[in-house]
């Protein structure tokens, strides 16, 4: 284990080891790790290759904004999933992840040749060439271009998993369960408004929950401590629903939003069985002035 790991946060349970495979090699992390944090803790930094020039890529962020650390999960023909961000996937017992867009492997990638000839293939180069001789476009050039298309691989057999969807109506929808989101949701719910708070992470609290030193204080307490109390309090409010592992996917007119809730992607393979994998929430939040301005 490299010493990149920050010990003593309660969000990683260091008593519970979880083993997983990355590119065929066995590693272990702890319960609460994302694939990205577990890989970093194991000293693995090279995760993928860039789309065109196949330049080496590592982990750059810690959430849905991750542009680099994108993996193929699983190798079963029906269950494999392409283009999963390592920063979003929680590790589970039996997880198998693979680097993408490289051959034969991520460290030595033949496609890296593209990087060497990158001066020849600037943005939009294909509009300027491959026109002669004409018959070569169909037989040679385009097949070559298509060979280098794509990042991950599509499954090749039908998906055995189950999915669900549901319409819900709320007075207030709060997107993002950080400090401000939690307080907004609390105030809304206490003002007798039916409120939904969604966050894409497994716990709400945002980055505040990690702030446990004297530089971050609210009401003379470490802000993580302070927020913990608030989180505890909102869990008792009747007309406030909190959905974690839920990310907003679309904003349509009249405050109609779509959210994807991940229900089993973090569970071990045997615990996933017979459960709904994801649920699409079709959320209608009450029309507000703000949304009108958005219109």
């Amino acid at each position, binding site marked *: 284990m490299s010493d990149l790991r920050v010990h003593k946060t309660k969000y990683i349970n260091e008593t519970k080891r979880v083993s997983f495979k990355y590119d065929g090699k066995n590693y272990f992390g702890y319960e609460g790790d994302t694939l990205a944090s577990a890989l970093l803790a194991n000293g693995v930094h090279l995760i993928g290759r860039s789309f065109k020039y196949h330049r080496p890529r590592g982990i750059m962020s810690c959430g849905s904004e991750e542009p680099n650390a994108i993996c193929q999960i699983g190798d079963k023909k029906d269950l494999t999933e392409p283009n999963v961000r390592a920063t979003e996937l929680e590790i589970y017992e039996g997880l198998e992840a693979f680097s993408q867009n490289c051959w034969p492997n991520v460290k030595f990638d033949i496609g890296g040749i593209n990087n060497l000839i990158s001066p020849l293939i600037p943005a939009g180069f294909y509009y300027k060439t491959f026109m002669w001789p004409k018959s070569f476009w169909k037989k040679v050039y385009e097949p070559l271009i298509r060979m280098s298309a794509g990042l991950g691989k599509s499954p090749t057999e039908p998906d055995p998993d189950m999915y*669900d969807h549901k*319409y819900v109506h709320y007075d207030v929808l709060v997107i993002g369960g950080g400090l401000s989101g939690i307080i907004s949701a609390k105030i809304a719910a206490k003002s007798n408004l039916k409120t939904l708070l969604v966050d894409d992470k497994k716990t709400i609290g945002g980055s505040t929950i990690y702030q446990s030193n004297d530089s971050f204080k609210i009401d003379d307490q470490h802000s993580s401590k302070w927020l913990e109390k608030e989180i505890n309090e909102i869990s008792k409010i009747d007309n406030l629903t909190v959905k974690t592992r839920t990310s907003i996917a679309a904003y349509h007119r009249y405050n109609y939003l779509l959210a994807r809730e991940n229900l089993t992607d973090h569970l071990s393979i045997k615990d996933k069985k017979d459960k709904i994998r994801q649920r699409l929430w079709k959320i*209608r939040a009450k029309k507000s002035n703000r949304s009108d301005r958005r219109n």
Partner: protein
Amino acid sequence: MLNTHYPQITDNKLNDVEISLQEPISKINLRGKSKEFFAKVGKVLSLILPNEANTSSFSENFNAIWLSPDEWMVYFKNDDEKVIFNKLYSEISKVNYGSVTDISDQWICINLKGSKIYDILSAGCSFNFDQFLKTDGLSTQTIVNHIDVILHNKNTYNINLFVRRSFSEHLCLWLNDSAKFI
């Protein structure tokens, strides 16, 4: 040939949802606007048709659901359904006060009971049940899983759902399926 099959309802007690077929019951569609129309309906059914949208009214034997400003559905359990229909028909349709149509075979009534019934419906229905579930007697026409339905809130967490016979089998399968995964 006329389809007179009823949907098979199995596994009807799942996750505190009880689904049961409420058949046979009689259903009559009433349309009219005139004073005489309301008077005749009142006389035959001893019932005042609801004039407020999305509501219903009832008398000892009959339930009447508002469908549109000049249209209602009356449903009732009756061993001799034709008697009521014939009475209404001769007092209203025949004398052009309005129209009376027997729709007993067209629509099927399914009863849903239990604290999770609205969770099931919400899986395929964009209707906002917040008010509906709080008030006994409310009714609504909407879509559940792409199928037209009429819903009637009998009392707390107990609703009658009406669906066209040809869609009923499919809807029941869907309801059962959804009930497994609330």
